[in-house]
């Protein structure tokens, strides 16, 4: 508990505090901007830029989803509809820009996508948001499946099975900037990620954004203080649809193709996974989730055919053991950081991480070998696993990985309570202060 300020404190200090307070508030955004601009120069592998583009789009999408789930408490299984519809509208607009000379330079395409997403959210939200909870989730599922199925019917808008393609090289130039290469598109995506994230953050601080939190926590009480929970949900829904549409527009620019899949259950499920793994309780959580998910999806799928299984396990583990997500887990350590007692955690955490890695290696090895035996052609005998060639059809590797898993598990039984105790110790309130 801090000592009360002496009565003689000078009130003029208020102005200075306010200015440094604002600087502290904007600093993270400036830092993020710097990082985003510098990233492609730091990481130069050619495959990195497309993946970072994908991450940017996923970040915008996941943040927009969190407006619904994290801030509004509305679980939606059909959020990809607004992403997809925004993308389709943006793609058609871009095609019109190329063909008929509509003045729509590439940097403004995501805005068109956003407006498209907003329009669709206004239409579908009018009945989707009438109720909350499970009913809302079911309606969102229904709308999602409806749109995905309609795509085959309305050929002209959705392009049927082939989808709609567009060409960003044919659009008019803005200040002479063209966006033909992936590297150039990266800066466009980075710009829009920053703008969208800042806007969404600002929205969460407005009265309506705060009311969304209130309606999430206690709808009845919100009604008692005069807000209609339905209207609040509707506005949140429309805002989320707007930003999902921005993501869709970015997708149209980056991939130059939109198909019905962009609106389907798989895409909606993916954004739920992203947001939840990252942590729905914080603003930055979905950003982490989007990065992790895209990373696993792009990189892991090169090394293993069962990456989605690992993702599913990660997701379930998050739901069962760390429902606040990765960001929440990190934030648990905030008090310890502030009181500078994190040092004591390093040892036990490293030990726990080491044995957990051993156990994970064992389990992953076993799963990969099962996958190999179940699906590889009978002529292939060896498989590269952790930089070693193993022969899954013999007994030795199985025993080896099983031993790793068991050893890791036993080690975890020893190390985990220690880590938990260290954490409790680091968070123990200090006497007197």
């Amino acid at each position: 508990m801090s000592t009360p300020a002496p009565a003689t404190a000078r009130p003029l200090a208020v102005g200075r505090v306010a200015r440094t307070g604002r600087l502290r508030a904007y600093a993270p955004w400036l830092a993020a901007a710097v990082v985003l601009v510098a990233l492609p120069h730091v990481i130069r592998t050619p495959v990195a830029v497309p993946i970072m583009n994908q991450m940017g789009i996923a970040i915008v999408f996941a943040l927009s989803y969190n407006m619904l789930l994290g801030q509004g408490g509305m679980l939606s299984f059909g959020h990809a509809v607004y992403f997809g519809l925004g993308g389709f509208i943006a793609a058609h607009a871009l095609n019109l820009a190329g063909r008929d000379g509509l003045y729509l330079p590439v940097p403004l395409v995501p805005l068109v996508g956003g407006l498209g997403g907003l329009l669709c959210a206004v239409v579908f939200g009018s009945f989707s948001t009438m109720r909350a909870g499970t009913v809302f989730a079911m309606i969102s599922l229904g709308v999602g499946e409806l749109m995905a199925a309609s795509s085959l019917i309305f050929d002209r808008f959705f392009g049927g099975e082939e989808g709609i393609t567009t060409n960003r090289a044919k659009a008019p130039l803005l200040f002479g900037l063209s966006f033909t290469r992936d590297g150039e598109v990266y800066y466009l995506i980075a710009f829009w990620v920053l703008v969208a994230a800042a806007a969404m953050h600002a929205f969460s601080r407005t009265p309506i954004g705060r009311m969304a939190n209130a309606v999430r926590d206690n709808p009845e009480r919100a009604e008692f203080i005069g807000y209609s929970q339905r209207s609040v949900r509707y506005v949140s829904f429309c805002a989320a649809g707007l930003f999902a549409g921005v993501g869709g527009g970015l997708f149209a620019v980056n991939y130059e193709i939109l198909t019905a899949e962009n609106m389907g259950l798989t895409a909606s499920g993916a954004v739920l996974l992203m947001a939840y793994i990252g942590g729905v309780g914080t603003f930055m959580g979905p950003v982490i989730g989007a990065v992790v998910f895209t990373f696993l999806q792009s990189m892991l799928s090169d090394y293993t055919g069962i990456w989605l299984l690992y993702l599913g396990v990660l997701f379930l583990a998050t739901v069962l053991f760390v429902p606040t997500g990765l960001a929440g887990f990190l934030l648990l350590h905030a008090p310890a950081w502030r009181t500078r007692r994190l040092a004591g955690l390093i040892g036990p955490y490293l030990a726990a991480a080491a044995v957990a890695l051993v156990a994970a290696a064992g389990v992953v090895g076993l799963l990969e070998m099962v996958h190999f035996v179940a699906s590889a052609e009978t002529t292939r005998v060896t498989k590269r696993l952790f930089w070693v060639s193993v022969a899954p059809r013999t007994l030795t590797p199985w025993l080896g990985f099983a031993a790793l898993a068991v050893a890791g598990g036993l080690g975890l039984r020893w190390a985990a309570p220690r880590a938990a105790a260290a954490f409790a110790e680091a968070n123990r309130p200090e006497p007197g202060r």
Partner: protein
Amino acid sequence: MLQIAFFSVLNGLVYGMLLFMLSSGLTLIFGMMGVLNFAHAGFYMLGAYFAYSLGLYLGFWPALVLAPLLAGVAGAAVERFGLRRVHRFGHVAELIFTFGVALLIEEAVALLWGRPAKTYEVPAVLDFTLFRAFGSSFPAYKAFMLLVAVAIFLFIVAILTRTRAGLIIQASLTHPGMVAMLGHNVPRVFMIVFGIGSALAGLAGVIAGPVLGTFPGMAQVLGSIVFVVVVIGGLGSLTGAFAASLLIGIVQTFAVALDVSVGDVLMALGTPASASAALHDVWKVTVAQVAPIMPFLLLIVVLMVRPTGLFGTRET
């Protein structure tokens, strides 16, 4: 026309009863525990795969009995070790959890059995034509499916209304607190109901696998439709699930058979369709093309107008 109508009714009945086998378990689970089990179709898939593998060694009939049992055990395990932990975080968390379980089941099946479809065949003893009518034949296996589904329905109704366990289950549906205070182990009742629901889904899988295909995506194909059925019929109502399953089964099957387009309907009603190109897509849409989306349209309409469903009493 009569030929199409006759076979559409029959095929629609078969499809509808299959949906009922799936949705009965789901609606019971929902009615009991308030959780909409996203992973329900996953147990349907597990049933089919277990039956395929067991059938390779033991034959179709022992597999028909064992596979649903295995699926039921899996379901009970999911409830006991997973759902129970998540229960205290609320309904949204439960939904998310079952979504994760659904994903995991699909990936685990792909891991263990591979991604290409399995040749899970109709057993030879049932692989014949039951009868021919209007130039087309009706396979005996579909009649078998119908029989099993009806038997299940009667079985469930009998258990729920005539046995003691069934009465306890019915009571737990509406007054779990009271039932607990009377000394019954309500968590165990939940686990058993979850297990039975999953076993029913597994049985549906055993039966439907040869007809609808046995592949890791089979859960996704039926998953959404089952939710639609349960919600339309009324969450927690068995009669509702029965009525909705038949309704959707027959409507969807009939819809595929009809080549009538929206333009035709409008013409028949006396308002000719305009020739404008923009709406051309809408006018030439046929009922057959709209068939896949009709259940979802119905779902949205019912949820807006009557969220408790046709026969249900609870919302969430």
